[in-house]
């Protein structure tokens, strides 16, 4: 391998990529456990399909649009790496192979659209959702990743590299981006039948907890891995990720106890995710005590925010806005307050003598990504709704989207498997012929 290469850093980024990959199934379980049993599979499938679609697009053109040499003004990459051609096996990004970097970044591109799906639980046609994922990744995620994550000595993305917006691991590019898109789609698709009236309690909280556990686990790859090296910055990001998550869980639980009288496990899981979201942009620039502050604030604020949807009549079904948009905005802005100036980045925040400069830059980053994602997502969603249709029919929603869209049932615990009859594809003739040969069923 060429000079500057580090096997240690490479090992770290490979495993971090695997960890980020497992977050998407984790998200599927987190979301899937929260819906009613009749739409479990649809919820899982909406995440899993992102693994399939975005991976292929990434190799075809996504990596090039996001991390190809800037095509102008820091807005998008050019087409040099179409099909990932021309990427030498031993070429490096920093101290790691380009392939390692590309794999790591791909996992971010996968989970971001998957996050959106929580806003439209129980009611989105699967084919339409799949189309949305492909379009959204292409016209929203790939460019925004370029804006935020592509560094090229001041010639990279306009937000991160050119304007000094700090987003260590994706508070803007991932969470605000997905949150704003979730808001747009929740508006486009409208409220579920029975929203605010029917009981819609989670069908499996253990599944939710499994999801939150895998998300937390994978998030170390997401955040610490974003250092792209196994070094002290990654170490600080690691510690900050853990402690902010912990503090956010405590914050959410405390809020819930005061407001609703109980410490719920769903609250614990939700608080943890809120903390993970909020520390994502900040983990490379705050101290561990700062991380506790970020976590606590995010835990309480997101717990308060999710209640609003019932007042506003917005059916953001699994709180993509309340957790990812709100948490992402909080974390991104708090960088402007809590950045110490001597962790990963040198810019200091307001509380560390850095003045209002960084806070202003953070506002820019938040506003730009939020606005771009909301508008584009609304346009894409509306276009799909008006053409092929995005929302399922009402009776499908009532009887359960899993049956209509996936021709499956999530569970069959009965001693019964009741009322099933094999219909195909064992052709009648064949079946008859072999039935004779079958041992008598002497049950």
């Amino acid at each position, binding site marked *: 391998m060429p000079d500057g290469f580090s096997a240690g850093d490479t090992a770290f980024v490979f495993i971090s990529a695997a960890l980020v990959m497992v977050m998407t199934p984790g998200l599927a379980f987190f979301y899937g456990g929260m819906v009613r049993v009749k739409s479990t599979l649809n919820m899982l499938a909406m995440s899993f399909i992102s693994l399939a679609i975005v991976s292929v697009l990434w190799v075809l053109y996504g990596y090039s649009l996001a991390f190809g040499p800037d095509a102008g003004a820091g807005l998008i990459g050019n087409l040099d790496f179409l099909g990932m051609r021309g990427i030498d096996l031993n070429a490096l990004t920093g101290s790691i192979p380009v392939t390692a970097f590309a794999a790591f970044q791909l996992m971010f591109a996968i989970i971001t659209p998957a996050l959106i799906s929580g806003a439209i639980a129980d009611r989105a046609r699967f084919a339409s959702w799949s189309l949305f994922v492909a379009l959204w990744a292409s016209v929203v995620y790939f460019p925004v990743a370029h804006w935020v994550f592509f560094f090229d000595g001041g010639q990279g993305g306009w937000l991160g590299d050119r304007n000094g917006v700090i987003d260590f691991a994706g508070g803007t590019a991932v969470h605000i981006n997905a949150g704003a898109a979730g808001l747009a789609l929740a508006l486009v698709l409208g409220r579920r039948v029975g929203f605010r009236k029917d009981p819609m309690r989670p069908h499996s909280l253990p599944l939710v907890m499994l999801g939150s556990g895998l998300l937390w686990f994978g998030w170390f790859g997401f955040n610490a891995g974003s250092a792209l090296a196994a070094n002290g910055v990654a170490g600080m990001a690691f510690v900050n990720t853990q402690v902010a998550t912990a503090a956010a869980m405590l914050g959410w639980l405390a809020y819930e106890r005061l407001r609703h009288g109980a410490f719920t496990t769903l609250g614990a899981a939700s608080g943890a995710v809120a903390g993970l979201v909020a520390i994502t942009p900040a983990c490379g620039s705050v101290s561990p005590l700062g991380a506790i502050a970020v976590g606590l604030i995010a835990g309480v604020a997101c717990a308060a925010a999710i209640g609003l949807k019932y007042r506003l009549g917005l059916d953001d079904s699994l709180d993509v806005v309340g957790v990812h948009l709100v948490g992402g905005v909080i974390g991104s802005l708090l960088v402007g307050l809590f950045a110490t100036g001597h962790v990963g980045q040198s810019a200091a925040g307001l509380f560390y003598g850095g003045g209002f400069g960084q806070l202003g830059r953070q506002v820019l980053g938040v506003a730009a990504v939020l606005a771009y994602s909301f508008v584009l997502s609304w346009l894409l969603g509306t276009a799909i709704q008006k053409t092929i249709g995005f929302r399922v029919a009402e009776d499908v929603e009532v009887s359960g989207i899993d*049956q*209509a869209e996936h021709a499956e049932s999530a569970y069959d615990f009965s001693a019964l498997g009741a009322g*099933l009859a094999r219909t195909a594809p064992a052709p009648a003739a064949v079946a008859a012929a072999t039935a004779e040969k079958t041992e008598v069923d002497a049950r």
Partner: protein
Amino acid sequence: MKLITAVIKPHRLDEVKDALQAFGVHGLTVTEASGYGRQRGHTEVYRGAEYTVDLVPKLRVEILVEDEDAEQLIEVVVKAARTGKIGDGKVWSVPVETAVRVRTGERGPDAL
């Protein structure tokens, strides 16, 4: 006394409960059930094996009532459970010889 049994669509339970409450009946027992009838089921596919699922989820509601209320109660339940679509279910009544409240041993109407 009579035992009214109603097989209804699951999402009508709330309406039935409310209607009973309004009628002055404050107790019932529900079991989950699967129904087979005119309402068609659906097809499922698992790795190339297609299954016809012809049992549809239903709830089975049982209500003990005094003889004189039975007829009216049936009407109330039928109305609350109705959506007008195939598969709305059946309601039937059966004579009860005696009913006891377990807690107190009270019999007959007092048991309700």
